């Protein structure tokens, strides 16, 4: 709940209001109800007690009246045989028999002399004549108004009262009876109030006369110290004093009791009825408890109801808020589902409409963006198409140019012509490098190249670097050192070499003094190859830019034409292809250190012997080579070049011509060099296959293509023949041709020259 509804949310406020309202109303009604019912019940309890007390008083009075009446019989004149003492004696015995409570009875004659005495325990006396005329028992009773003596205790324990009854006008003497009050016990004990409540009787002095627990009476308990007894005795309350609250009362143990009393007027005694407060109020407490439980339940219900109500009220608002937030966050499709039918519902509708409008305009925008994106893609495709076409069309003339310049320098007789030929050769080489670099980047970007990883010794690679750069470094007056290493790495040897070639070429290029050190460092399962120079260095802010195309560190006094700014861009792309990256640490003027980190490799079980370097001169002399190219200048150049290398060359422009040429030749050619993309529908690969069919032997063949488009390269490579990309350096062409020719000569029935794998590698790096 707390997370769902943050502190201070509408839900909490509503919830608090509802709970306060409903709970408050419930509490107030329960409290007033309890107050009044408490009052009524209390009053009812007091009334009930008073009635019990009155009832008890009436019963005790009745008991006494009964005794009184019984005694009355004995004082009546006996009409038949007078009232002899014996007769009186028998009357008293009858009285004892009738009233068990009377222990002793006497009859005093009119002069106050005791004539007869009968007792249950002591000796009876007849005609003792004891004078009791001075006693109150004789003087007090009047006809119809008996005398009740004070309560006294026989043997200090048994409560007794003396009752004296005088006869009516025609009777004589007085009958005195001693009444054992223990027998009132029955009456009092029978008055039960609740579970433990009871009645008791005190006499006019507060002496306990009767109590359900007879022990209290036998112990002569004085109750005049109890507040309720004291006040009752002092107040001499009339019977009807009724509904005055008896106030706080205590029993003998000091427990609070609810009490009421009623007087027994004739005897001057008081009947008290009491009940422990805890018991008297138990039903009251139970009802309070019940009400409390009900209240709790009602409160719980009201809390639940408040929860529901608050939720019902806050939910739509929350939905609105969340909906607005979602729309604000860009979910324009979101629609608020608030169907309360009131203002909130209308608000939700408005917001939904607003979101729809936003959605529409947004949709327009997206459509426009999509159109633009499509246009851009089309433009990109056009660029790619252009590049592909351009690469082919550019390579052809450069290829031819290179071949011609080579021939020219071979034929140059005079110094000047040779110099110009050399310069032309350099220019062609630069042009080739530039084109290669541009195409390389396009091929890397096109993802044509897939790394072929293997375990190999890093040292062979380092040695090649040494061989490649030691001479040019020495020429510039730089120290060039490659630290030998026995480590193996796991990477693509060709791609890694190209990266390092680039880095080493840059190092040589940008260093004017000092030297270059190339070495490896082992770090865990990685090998870090470092190329350190003492060149111009790279400012920190440029250390990222150097990996972008056509970026060059400003080198003072340097001829810009010397570098293209593509080397590091290619190296970075290659590194990315190998899954590693090139790190650079440099300080301007102090030099730079480039590092490539590759996984450490293991030594392969058997090291394949390095492919023997093709022995160009030997294998080529006397070889018969068939050249298929649709470009006449290239055919001428190739013919001249091959002838120069000591070969016999036959040329053809297309497949048909090639077959014709093959048939004209006196022997099967040692090698076929075919342009991949020929005029017409046939490709170079198809022509080679037709020639094979005609010659009935697999003449070693290679494809040359000027098409840099990745898909064309793939096609050419898929044919299974070695592929050279135009423009081809004459030296490379010579090496390949020699290899093909030697393969042909070694086998009587030539299979295929497919062993040559290095040829389908990308061209050599461009230097800088």
């Amino acid at each position, binding site marked *: 709940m707390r997370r769902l509804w943050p502190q201070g949310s509408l839900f909490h406020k509503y919830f608090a209001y509802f709970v306060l309202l409903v709970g408050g109303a419930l509490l107030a009604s329960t409290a007033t109800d309890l107050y009044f019912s408490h009052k009524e019940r209390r009053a009812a309890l007091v009334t009930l007690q008073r009635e019990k007390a009155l009832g008890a008083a009436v019963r005790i009075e009745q008991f006494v009246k009964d005794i009184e009446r019984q005694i009355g019989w004995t004082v009546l004149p006996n009409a038949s045989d007078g009232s002899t003492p014996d007769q009186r004696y028998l009357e008293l015995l009858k009285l004892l028999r009738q009233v068990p409570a009377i222990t002793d009875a006497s009859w005093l004659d009119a002069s106050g002399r005791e004539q007869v005495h009968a007792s*249950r325990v002591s000796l009876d006396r007849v005609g003792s004549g004891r004078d009791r005329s001075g006693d109150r028992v004789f003087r007090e009773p009047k006809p119809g108004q008996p005398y009740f003596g004070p309560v006294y205790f026989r043997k200090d324990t048994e409560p007794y009262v003396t009752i004296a009854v005088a006869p009516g006008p025609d009777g004589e003497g007085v009958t005195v009876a001693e009444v054992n009050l223990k027998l009132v016990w029955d009456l009092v004990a029978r008055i039960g109030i609740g579970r433990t409540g009871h009645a008791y009787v005190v006499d006019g002095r507060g002496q306990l006369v009767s109590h359900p627990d007879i022990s209290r009476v036998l112990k002569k308990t004085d109750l005049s110290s109890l507040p309720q007894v004291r006040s009752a005795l002092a107040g001499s309350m009339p019977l009807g004093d009724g509904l005055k609250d008896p106030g706080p009362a205590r029993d003998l143990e000091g427990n609070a009791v609810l009490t009421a009393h009623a007087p027994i007027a004739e005897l001057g005694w008081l009947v008290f009825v009491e009940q422990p407060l805890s018991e008297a109020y138990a039903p009251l407490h139970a009802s309070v408890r019940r009400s*409390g439980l009900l209240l709790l339940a009602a409160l719980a219900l009201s809390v639940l109801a408040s929860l529901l109500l608050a939720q019902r009220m806050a939910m739509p608002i929350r939905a609105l808020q969340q909906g607005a937030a979602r729309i604000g966050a860009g979910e324009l499709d979101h629609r608020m589902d608030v169907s309360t039918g009131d203002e909130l519902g209308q608000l939700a509708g408005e917001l939904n409409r607003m979101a729809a409008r936003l959605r529409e305009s947004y949709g327009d925008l997206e459509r426009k963006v999509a159109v633009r994106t499509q246009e851009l893609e089309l433009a990109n495709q056009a660029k790619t198409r252009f590049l592909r076409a351009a690469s082919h069309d550019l390579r052809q003339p450069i290829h031819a140019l290179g071949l011609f310049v080579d021939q020219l320098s071979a034929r140059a007789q005079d110094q000047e012509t040779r110099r110009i030929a050399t310069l032309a050769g350099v220019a062609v080489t630069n042009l080739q490098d530039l084109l290669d670099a541009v195409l390389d980047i396009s091929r890397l970007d096109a993802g044509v190249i897939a790394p072929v990883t293997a375990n190999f010794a890093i040292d062979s690679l380092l040695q090649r670097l040494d061989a490649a750069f030691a001479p040019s470094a020495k020429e510039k007056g730089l120290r060039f050192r490659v630290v030998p290493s026995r480590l193996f790495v796991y990477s693509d040897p060709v791609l890694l070499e190209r990266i390092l070639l680039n880095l080493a070429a840059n190092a040589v290029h940008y260093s004017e003094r000092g030297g270059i050190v190339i070495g490896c460092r082992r770090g865990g399962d990685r090998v870090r190859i470092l190329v350190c120079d003492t060149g111009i260095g790279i400012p920190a802010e440029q250390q990222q830019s150097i990996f972008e195309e056509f970026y060059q560190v400003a080198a003072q006094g340097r001829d810009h034409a010397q570098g293209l700014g593509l080397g590091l861009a290619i190296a970075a792309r290659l590194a990315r292809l190998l899954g590693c990256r090139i790190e650079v640490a440099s300080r301007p003027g102090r030099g730079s250190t480039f590092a490539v980190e590759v996984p450490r490799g293991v030594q392969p079980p058997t090291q394949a012997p390095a492919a023997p370097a093709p022995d160009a001169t030997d294998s080529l002399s006397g070889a018969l080579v068939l050249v298929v190219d649709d470009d006449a200048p290239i055919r001428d150049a190739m013919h001249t070049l091959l002838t120069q290398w000591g070969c016999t060359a036959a040329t053809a422009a297309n497949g048909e011509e090639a077959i014709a040429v093959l048939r004209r030749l006196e022997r099967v050619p040692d090698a076929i060099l075919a342009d991949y993309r020929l005029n017409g529908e046939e490709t170079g690969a198809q022509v080679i296959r037709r020639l094979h069919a005609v010659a009935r032997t697999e003449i070693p063949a290679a494809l040359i293509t000027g098409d840099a488009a990745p898909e064309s390269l793939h096609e050419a490579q898929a044919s299974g023949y070695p592929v050279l990309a135009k423009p081809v350096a004459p030296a490379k062409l010579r090496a390949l041709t020699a290899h093909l020719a030697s393969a042909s000569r070694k086998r009587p029935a030539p299979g295929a020259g497919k062993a040559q794998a290095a040829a389908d590698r990308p061209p050599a790096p461009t230097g800088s």
Partner: protein
Amino acid sequence: MSRICLLTLAVLIAWLTAPMTIAQDTDTAKVGLIGLDERECGNEPLRSGLRGLGYREGENFVIECRHGGGRYDRLPLAAAELVRAKPDVIVAPTHLAAAAAQRATRHIPIVFVATSDPVLGGFAASLARPGGNMTGVTCYAGELTAKRLELLKAVAPGIRRLAILSSPYLTPRLKEVYIREAAAAAKDLQMETLVCEASGGEDLERKFDEMAAWKADALYIMPTVVFAYEAQQIADLARWHRLPTMHWYKPFASLGGLMAYGVDYPTLQRHAAVYVDKILKGSHPSDLPIEQPTHYQLVINRETANELGLAIPPSIALRADRIIE
């Protein structure tokens, strides 16, 4: 804040749901009982009294009874044995049993049904406040001796020589008081007295012979429980010797004795249960007043009276609670 609310709520609920259960005392009370013999261990009035107060034997009370095998001198042994069983309260249904219990323990509450004066017997300091570990009911009242003799004389007006049957089991002090009372009352009623002390059995026969030799014309039985046990023999011997006899033990008349004036003994036994109940509920015997009977019953055997040639006068007939025809 919410923790305080929860706490308040918990307290409120605890108070509201507090059930009004009354803790039931499931302990079983052990009520000790000393009897003269096995028959007295039965004590049905006591049991019914306890049942009437809501006790259920075997459930919330058991009666642990030890008896003297019919011999008075074995009662102290039985009492000592009972004390070792550690009862919650001891009921002594007779004066002799109470005396034995008193010697056995000063701590375990003792409820007695005393045939003799409990104050003179040394059981209690006073009737209203016994003060020790003993309380109970008594069927004795000092004036009763005179009353009994008065009633005896009312039935047999001619008697002049009264034999008084005493018991060696009465303590000297009690015996002295009883004899003094009886002698005084007899003197008031113009009778000479002879005190015979009989322990029972053959001794009783000898004593009756003694009385006959002394020419006794009436017999008074002292209030000691021994003579309740011997009631049948006394009744028989009295008829044999034609002695109008007054006993304190009500069944005496039914057994062939002339008359008895006393309490209903089973009622007292039954009432002892009230004391047991109060003590089990925590009252101390020292605070429980000793109750005296409120009603004495006069029983006369008309057959025996006729045998003795005695007429029952109207005053006796009026007083008699029962006349055995």
